[in-house]
């Protein structure tokens, strides 16, 4: 389904809902195949996690107590802010203002890069305290799910670097590529929101 509005660079205002881009699929449509599929794969993981948590509430609750809730919360805010600036950057890029878009994507990259760093600050003390994937089923779920999510974050950061390079070099920037990168990054953010609730917050 070729994206007919791919090179659609009207100077659209940010607030007015754009009637003319009704039905505009951000990024190329086959990327959405990947995004929806990834959501489904992680969805299966979340449901299986909940099922096994139902089997053994005590173990999950006590193990969960060992996690540091604060780093998780800060990480969530980091990803959310990074997502915001990616979204703002996309709007600016679509409005043709590459300089502004570039600044926003750099900020988004900064926030995004903070996530793996914080994750390391969280994991290393835990692992050195002996809480490894082999400890029990909760920590296996914890490390596997956050590990796979971290791989997606790493891939997202790489894609964002390519988006920044695209914004810097080509005039006008390839909008569909910027949107594809943004869509992927937002998916990573959505996955973390659910992960944060399941692993840290729920009791």
């Amino acid at each position: 389904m070729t994206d007919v509005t791919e090179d659609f660079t009207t100077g659209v205002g940010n607030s007015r809902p754009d009637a003319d881009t009704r039905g505009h699929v951000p990024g190329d449509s086959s990327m959405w195949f990947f995004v929806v599929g990834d959501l489904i794969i992680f969805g299966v993981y979340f449901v299986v996690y909940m099922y096994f948590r139902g089997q053994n509430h005590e173990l999950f609750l006590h193990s969960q107590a060992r996690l540091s809730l604060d780093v998780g919360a800060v990480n969530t805010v980091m990803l959310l802010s990074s997502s915001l600036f990616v979204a703002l950057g996309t709007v600016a890029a679509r409005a043709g203002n590459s300089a502004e878009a570039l600044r926003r994507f750099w900020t988004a990259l900064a926030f995004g890069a903070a996530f793996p760093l914080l994750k390391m600050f969280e994991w290393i003390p835990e692992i050195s305290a002996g809480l490894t994937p082999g400890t029990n089923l909760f920590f296996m779920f914890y490390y596997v799910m956050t590990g796979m999510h971290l791989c997606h974050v790493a891939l997202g950061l790489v894609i964002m670097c390519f988006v920044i390079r695209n914004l810097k070099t080509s005039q006008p920037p390839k909008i569909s590529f910027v949107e594809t990168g943004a869509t992927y990054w937002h998916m990573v953010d959505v996955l973390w929101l659910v992960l944060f609730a399941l692993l840290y917050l729920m009791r």
Partner: protein
Amino acid sequence: MATAPNPEAGQARSWRQNRKLDQWIAFWSVPFFFTLFGLVFVPLSWMMPPRSPSSTTPLIVDFMRSHNLLVACVILTLAFGLAPVSYSCYLIQIRRMSVSPAFRYSMMIGAITGAIVGMLFPMFCFGLGAFRPGYSPAVLTMLYDFGYLAFIGSLGCFCVMWMAFGLAILLDQNNILPKWLGYYTVWQYVTELMAAPVWIAKSGPFAWNGLLTFWFAMTLYVSWQFIVYLCIYRAIKNQPEAELDNARPELQPAALDNGSRMGA
């Protein structure tokens, strides 16, 4: 043997004259190999679906001494040469793409490694257990673990293969294979990540017979294998005659010679 209808000037050509005979032979050998693979693994030797890593030693010893494992070993050692043929079906499609040859070379090297560590070696681990009755339970349990972990836990070689294949499809401008298949192939990389915990967990959803690491990863893999196979069929079928290596001169577009068609 499927007689692929030949778009040549209408006269009925027996499949022997089909211009893409080598591709069709390689293509139709794959379902034969996979059905044989399935039959050997599931009904014959009941190796798959895998037993639990924490099953009791007598159960392991009893399973490792069954004669069917040897028969499975023989059939596989005779047939496992067809795995490279199935990989070469993917490689010829990558060769047609406008990507650097590095993609198909990395896939080729991944295939070589994968065929040994992912198939032959684990198969022999089971065969060895059944070959000589005198082994102590400790040795048999080691072979049992080695066999299953090598089958399900061999990750890296397949990672590089699916990544190379997926990236090649995504970067390809000739649109030999659909872009969504490229993303689907990159998922196979994710299924390898999902299989990593088999080396740690001995029970539950992350063991080598676990719900997530085996069953979910297997459904993703088998469905992908089937779909990619259909796309390869379409790609072979739609390849114009002129583009073949053995295209006759009158079909050959004027200036193209063998070398220039391949991407830099």
